[in-house]
């Protein structure tokens, strides 16, 4: 990080942030290590969504070794928000959750298939027993983003209305029906214990009109 910092100042090339802001890039510029001059769009996006002063504040609250990841995740979020001004990253989270649920249903179906072999007495030289034991001891894989008593109101993007799904218990039960599916696959506490139940429910949205955001 320090090497990149020196490189930006010693080469007399302002970082992308200072270029964008049309100011002198000081040796101690907080943006320089993370916004190289050859990636102008990165800072432009971050600036559009978060603003330079907010990014500065965020970075100043972090340890130096955390800042690169923070900037990169902010750049990602900004990019997603500009691509989808209505849902931003949340749209992607919704899609991935949907995909994960589909896969988990597939696993459930496949395990049912597998169990039929057991019923037929085809042991596969102990493979089935081993497989059953293996799956029953799966670690938690699911992510607990669920909560809230929301209804399904958004019909334009089907995955969007699943972003605020119903009660966590209800969701786990729906996968824990007699398919030998391990409900713990769905549950993982987000580190912050942040539940979606405290968020308001999505109201109907019709379009995914993409608008550009003027630079601030």
């Amino acid at each position: 990080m320090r090497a990149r910092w020196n490189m930006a100042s010693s080469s007399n090339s302002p970082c992308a942030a200072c270029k964008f802001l049309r100011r002198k890039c000081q040796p101690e510029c907080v943006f320089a290590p993370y916004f190289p001059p050859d990636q102008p769009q990165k800072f432009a996006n971050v600036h559009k969504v978060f603003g330079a002063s907010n990014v500065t504040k965020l970075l100043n609250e972090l340890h130096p070794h955390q800042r690169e990841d923070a900037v990169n995740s902010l750049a990602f979020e900004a990019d997603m928000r500009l691509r989808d001004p209505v849902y931003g990253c949340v749209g992607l989270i919704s899609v991935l959750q949907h995909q994960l649920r589909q896969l988990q249903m597939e696993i459930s179906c496949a395990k049912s298939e597998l169990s039929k072999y057991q019923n037929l007495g085809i042991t596969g030289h102990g493979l089935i027993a081993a497989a059953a034991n293996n799956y029953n001891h799966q670690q938690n894989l699911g992510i607990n983003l669920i909560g809230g008593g929301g209804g399904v109101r958004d019909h334009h993007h089907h995955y969007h209305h699943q972003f605020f799904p119903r009660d966590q218990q209800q969701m786990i039960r729906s996968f824990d029906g007699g398919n030998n599916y391990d409900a713990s696959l769905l549950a993982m506490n987000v580190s912050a214990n942040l539940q979606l139940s405290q968020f308001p429910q999505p109201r109907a949205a019709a379009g995914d009109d993409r608008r550009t955001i003027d630079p601030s």
Partner: protein
Amino acid sequence: MMSSRCAACKYLRRRCPSDCIFSPYFPPNDPQRFSCVHRIYGASNVGKMLQQLPSHLRSQAADTLYFEAQYRLQDPVYGCVGIISQLHQQINRAESQVAKIQAEISFLNSNAQEVEEPQVDQHFEANSNFINNFLPEQINTLDLSPYGLPSTQTSWFN
């Protein structure tokens, strides 16, 4: 006695005009909501983002901005990108599980054929096809590497 100002105008200590862009989405009874988005995006950016959307989409936009802001406050390094990475990992694991079970079924299916159960063969073959066709051809797993974000570490949440 009644305050007619929305949470945003209260926070910003200004008069709340009748056409306030924030008013429908930041009611006065939830001051924390605006405070949260203000800390991450700033009032000006939020106002611009909402202003540029058709009115019927602004509510969803405000909700998702709030969601992302909350996650960023909780996890200042990764925000909700941490969730995305975690979901990617889980999807990869789930895909592996599906593949593993399919392999088990294929193996046992070949065993079943050896045991001379022709009816079972058709049954399992049909179901294998079902499982194969049920898998999407290509799951859209977003590659985070262009953003310089690691994809496999789980130590982020410590």
